[in-house]
């Protein structure tokens, strides 16, 4: 706990007036980042890095809003602490839930994929190569099949899987 005997960051009333140029520059920065994120997302294909890049830009924008529009840079430290705490618990919520959902069935007592998907996967496999049913083990296999319907790939044996499994690997 911080000690209470610390004075305000800035003098009387603690009402810091954020200068107009700072506000306008912040707005400019936000617009720039918005254009940047649209451009990088639509024009560039960074594969696995698309998501982190977009999120990083969003975090940058969020920081600008928080620091200058919301004035947290000039504000009481306890407000910053509050916000940090809030964000920390959102991250805990997401990551601890992912400990389950991203590792579901890790010791084999729970199926990794829902029955519906399994049925779908087996049907697809059965259709394209009756001998291979039961060989597919991961959801990626069935999704790979779904995205390359039978009609489009006349020779199932040389089905090119890599490009469809790539996004899967990203996570």
């Amino acid at each position, binding site marked *: *706990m911080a*000690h*209470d005997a610390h004075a305000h960051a800035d003098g009387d009333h603690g009402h810091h007036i954020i200068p107009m140029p700072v506000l306008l520059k912040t707005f400019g920065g936000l617009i720039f980042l918005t254009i940047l994120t649209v451009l990088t997302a639509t024009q560039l294909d960074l594969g696995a890095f698309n998501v982190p890049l977009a999120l990083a830009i969003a975090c940058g924008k969020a920081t600008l809003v928080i620091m200058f529009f919301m004035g947290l840079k000039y504000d009481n430290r*306890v407000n910053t602490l509050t916000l940090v*705490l*809030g964000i920390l*618990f959102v991250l*805990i*919520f997401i990551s*601890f*839930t992912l*400990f*389950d*959902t*991203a*590792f*579901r*069935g*890790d*010791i084999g*007592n*729970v199926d990794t994929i*829902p029955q*519906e998907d399994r049925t779908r996967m087996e049907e697809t496999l059965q259709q394209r190569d009756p001998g291979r049913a039961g060989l597919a083990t991961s959801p990626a296999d069935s999704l790979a099949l779904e995205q390359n319907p039978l009609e489009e790939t006349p020779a199932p044996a040389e089905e090119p899987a890599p490009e469809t499994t790539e996004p899967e690997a990203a996570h």
Partner: protein
Amino acid sequence: MATVMHTDAPAEAAAHHHPEHHHPEHHYLNHEKTIWSWLSTVDHKRIGIMYAISVAIFFLIAGVLALLVRMELLGPGETIMGPDAYNQVFTLHAVMMVFLFIIPAVPGFLGNFALPIQIGAKDVAFPRLNLASWYIFMAGAALAVIAIGVGQVDTGWTFYTPYSSDGSNSVFFVTLAVFVAGFASIFTGINFIVTIHKMRAPGMTWNRLPLFVWALYATSIVQVLATPVIGITMVLLFLEKFLGIGIFDPALGGDPILFQHFFWFYSHPAVYIMILPAFGIISELVTVFSRQNIQGYTFIALSSVAIAFLGFLVWGHHMFVSGQSAVSSIIFSLITYLIGIPTGIKVLNWVSTMYKGSVWLQTPMLYALSFLFLFTIGGLTGVMVGVLAVDVHLHDTYFIVAHFHYVMMGGTVIALLGGFHYWWPKITGKMYNETLGKIAAILIFIGFNITFFTQFVLGSRGMPRRYYDYLPEFTALHQISTVGSWILALGLFMVLFYMIHSMFRGKKAPANPWGAATLEWTHCTSPPDPHNFHHTPIVTHGPYDYHALEHLYEGDGVGDGATVEAAPGQKH
């Protein structure tokens, strides 16, 4: 612990000023008398009493429902109601106990009443918001009552999908009630945090905060951080039910286990919303009635905050057999043990506070001691069910039912009763009947153990929970448990009756009957002035500096009133 400044002369002078000399009969209860003055009050003390009355009513209703549950289980097969009725009764018992009684009880009642006075403030930071939270809480309660009227809510308080999203539509009212009552909880939490940060009297440093305030601070943090998640969970459940959004419903490709994550992300921390304030009460009681400085002030204070934090990281221990990943189970199990450590610290510190003290076995202390007994059982069995392999056997059996009743009832309710007796003279200005108080405390202790200890045995022998019917081999234990519930109820009704009697016929209470050293006792009349203090107190001592009590309080620092009759006073 705060450094004591014995020789702070001006402060002493200010403190010695005895408030009662001003207006002997003018206090917060009688300065305005109309019903409207109560319904529109922004006085934290009055709002505390309004909470007290409402939660007492819900406790009574939910308690009667519990008796009905126990009654039905008196024998196998149908005893007094059919399975559907039984399922609705236990659901309502749980929903009301959790959301309408135990979560708001201590913060809403004792917290509202004592917290501002304990830190030397005139009121909470946002008095109108405080009143609004009571109204919101009552609106939530009204919705819950509508759900009872509409009927057929039989999901259990956990609302697991897909049972809840496929079932009767009146689940909607209960989820809405939970959503609305959640806002009351959030607003109380915000109010307390701001009050503790911004409204402390001069000299009330963080290490001079009474431990009850620390506990409420930790509770409020949990309330603010966790409650919104139950809000969105209930919204999503509602949308699942009426739009079929497919997030939780397996029939639409959703994942029912995900719902359990959402639910427990709130509901596990909610367990700490329930128990942390009780820790605070026990810290007060143990030290006051041992007249001994609390052992390990910093450790108790910080362990509350540690528990609040760790409480968010263990929700998955409710889901060891749910089908979640083993990685998840292992991480959650490990952190679950870690939370046992700060809890253990508290218990051991409370016990050692009595060392070389002067232990005064008044009713509040009896409750504190029975808390130590019951909560230790509750806590240790909590560690047992946190053991992965053992939990597989014990999960969803009566062992769990017994465990959480030992923590929630043996912990929170017993502490609440202790705090209720402790602050009663301050709240009403009347003393209660000490003999009846002791008898009731002992009855409650005995009845509680008979009711719930048997359930540990039932559970570990394989009796599943939420069962309307059971196999004949469990009959004897169930019957003992049901008889215990009657003793427990007898004790609780005794409290109700002698407290009502005390309200009208009780002896007038002095300002500091227990010889306590916190501000509500040393600087306030009983009952307090509408503005709490006539002068804002300047705090120069820690909350448990009994050796300095004569500097804080008129007389020789032994308290007044009840002590006089205890023994023919011979000084030292």
